[in-house]
């Protein structure tokens, strides 16, 4: 073709492209008042200030934060000396590990959850079997497949390496010399026998040390929050009437995804509020994993939290008689609890593949397709209904989820191991583009 022909085609193409882009932008429908009301409630700015934890007297004590920070990264808090909380709750991965099941001294039956912003949730774990961050921290520490340790072992560790910090906060440690090196209500037969052989008073004293460790860990984890995402900046612009700026923050496809999120796809039914979670439990028909034990979700978790010695009404809690309303008035029975799991937050979700309670869904594409198809639950009853989304709707929805790109927000030193040099680690808001779990 002659040069003039090419130029003409190019010019036409450019004109058409510009016109197309212009009309697309101009055609972007405005939000209805009803939609705006819902959108307002999703902004990170509407998140309530960090709620007090009446069950943990030291929750907001800076010294407890410092101690908890050190404990969180201490691999000596394990049976083999190689597992710390940070082993699975990795700061550079938004405090999770990017694998379907977790690898401690063994392998778990469930997916590691992020601990970021969990201070705002009344229930911890996929099944809510713990009702505070401090009691949650105590679960993995004595799990035979996670840290693989026991509370007496940890008490000795505190006596050897953290005595000053511990006693400044919690008072004198018990006499540790006459206690067995290893003892606890754990599956390991030797440790279990040693625990039964201990005097009741000693067991109580060791359990108190254990609870205090949890409270220090919780004080540290309370500081980990989510920061604003591109979605929040978009909402700021929309509410300020700055449409030009808003259009620069969410693409038309992402906007379409947001519209579906609060509309046809009904995500906001459960993924609501500024953390995109109702902190409740739902059966969403997630498939069972062959080879893993039967998983009943909240149906068992509800029983376990009521029986937990470290719960809000238990002897190690600092809560008063008028506290603990979530536990005291919890919905503990009903078929809807079977294979119901806690709604996870969607902030930062694109960086935390794989998804669901045993990592059953590898990518966000798989997740959106799952909700669209609404398969039957292996047990119990799924709350999902077929959405009948088109391919372009599914893509738009996924695009919006990626725009919920909240960073982890915390004092920078808390986002790395204590004593670790800033240059050696990724800080929260300046995380390198980590493609893990894309």
């Amino acid at each position, binding site marked *: 073709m002659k040069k003039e022909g090419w130029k003409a085609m190019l010019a036409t193409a450019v004109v058409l492209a510009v016109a197309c882009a212009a009309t697309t932008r101009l055609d972007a429908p405005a939000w209805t008042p009803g939609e705006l*009301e819902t959108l307002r409630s999703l902004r990170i700015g509407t998140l309530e200030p960090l709620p007090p934890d009446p069950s943990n007297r030291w929750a907001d004590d800076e010294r407890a934060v410092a101690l908890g920070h050190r404990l969180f990264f201490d691999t000596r808090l394990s049976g083999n000396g190689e597992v710390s909380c940070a082993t699975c709750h990795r700061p550079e991965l938004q405090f999770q590990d990017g694998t379907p099941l977790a690898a401690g001294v063994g392998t778990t039956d469930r997916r590691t959850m992020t601990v970021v912003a969990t201070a705002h949730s009344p229930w911890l774990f996929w099944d809510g079997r713990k009702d505070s961050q401090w009691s949650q921290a105590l679960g993995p520490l004595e799990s035979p497949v996670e840290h693989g340790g026991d509370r007496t072992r940890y008490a000795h560790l505190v006596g050897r390496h953290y005595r000053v910090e511990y006693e400044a906060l919690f008072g004198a440690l018990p006499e540790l010399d006459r206690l067995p090196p290893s003892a606890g209500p754990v599956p390991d037969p030797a440790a279990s026998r040693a625990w039964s052989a201990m005097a009741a008073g000693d067991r109580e004293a060791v359990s108190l040390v254990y609870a205090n460790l949890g409270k220090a860990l919780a004080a540290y984890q309370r500081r980990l929050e989510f920061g604003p995402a591109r979605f929040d900046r978009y909402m700021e612009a929309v509410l300020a009437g700055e449409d030009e700026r808003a259009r620069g923050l969410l693409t038309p496809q992402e906007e379409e995804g947001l519209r579906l999120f609060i509309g046809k796809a009904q995500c906001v039914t459960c993924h609501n509020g500024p953390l995109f979670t*109702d902190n409740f439990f739902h059966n969403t028909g997630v498939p069972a994993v062959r080879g893993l034990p039967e998983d009943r979700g909240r149906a068992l978790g509800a029983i376990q939290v009521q029986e937990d010695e470290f719960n809000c009404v238990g002897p190690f809690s600092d809560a008063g008689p008028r506290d603990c*309303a979530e536990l005291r008035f919890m919905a503990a029975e009903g078929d809807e609890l079977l294979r119901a799991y806690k709604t996870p937050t969607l902030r930062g979700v694109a960086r935390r593949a794989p998804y669901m309670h045993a990592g059953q869904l590898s990518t966000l594409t798989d997740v959106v397709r799952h909700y669209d198809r609404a398969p039957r639950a292996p047990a119990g009853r799924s709350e999902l209904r077929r959405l009948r989304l088109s391919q372009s709707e599914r893509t738009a929805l996924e695009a919006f989820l990626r725009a919920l790109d909240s960073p982890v927000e915390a004092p920078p030193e808390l986002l790395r191991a204590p004593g670790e040099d800033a240059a050696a680690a990724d800080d929260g808001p300046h995380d390198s583009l980590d493609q893990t779990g894309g």
Partner: protein
Amino acid sequence: MRTTTGNPRTQPADTPRWSRRAKALGVVTFVALALVATGCGALMMPFHHSMGFDAGSRPTGEREYGFGDRLSKTGLYRVRAETPEPIRVGRIHEMRVHVETADGRPAEDATLSVDGGMPDHGHGLPTHPQVTAHLGGGEYLVEGMKYNMGGWWVVRVRIESASGADEVVFNLNL
């Protein structure tokens, strides 16, 4: 005398009469299965933690929402409720329920039970609220109220006392 016409057993298998029967049976079976399938489908409504009562239709007027004074279903009681702070979605809280008999006297010694849910979503309250104190003067403390999303909620208060048993339903738009 016996006749052989019309007796199906003496007819060859591929006569129109047999295949009509087979077809009819097939159609009936298919329709029956389809009905069963759609019947089952219709029954599989969002049915978790069911509300267990009929809340009626969504109120149209603004004034029909809220915990203000309401007469119970058969007119036995006048009920209102209040919360210490404005209701916040996702936050567990208490409320005080005031119960009077129809002639304006405080209903002492009543037994109250509270439940509710979202009629559009077919689920109940996410918690199990309880009356934890009789505050006197017909006032009752209910703890454990919680709404875990925005939208149309109904709260039913059932009342039983010497004056009789009745119930009142409040509508909230959160």
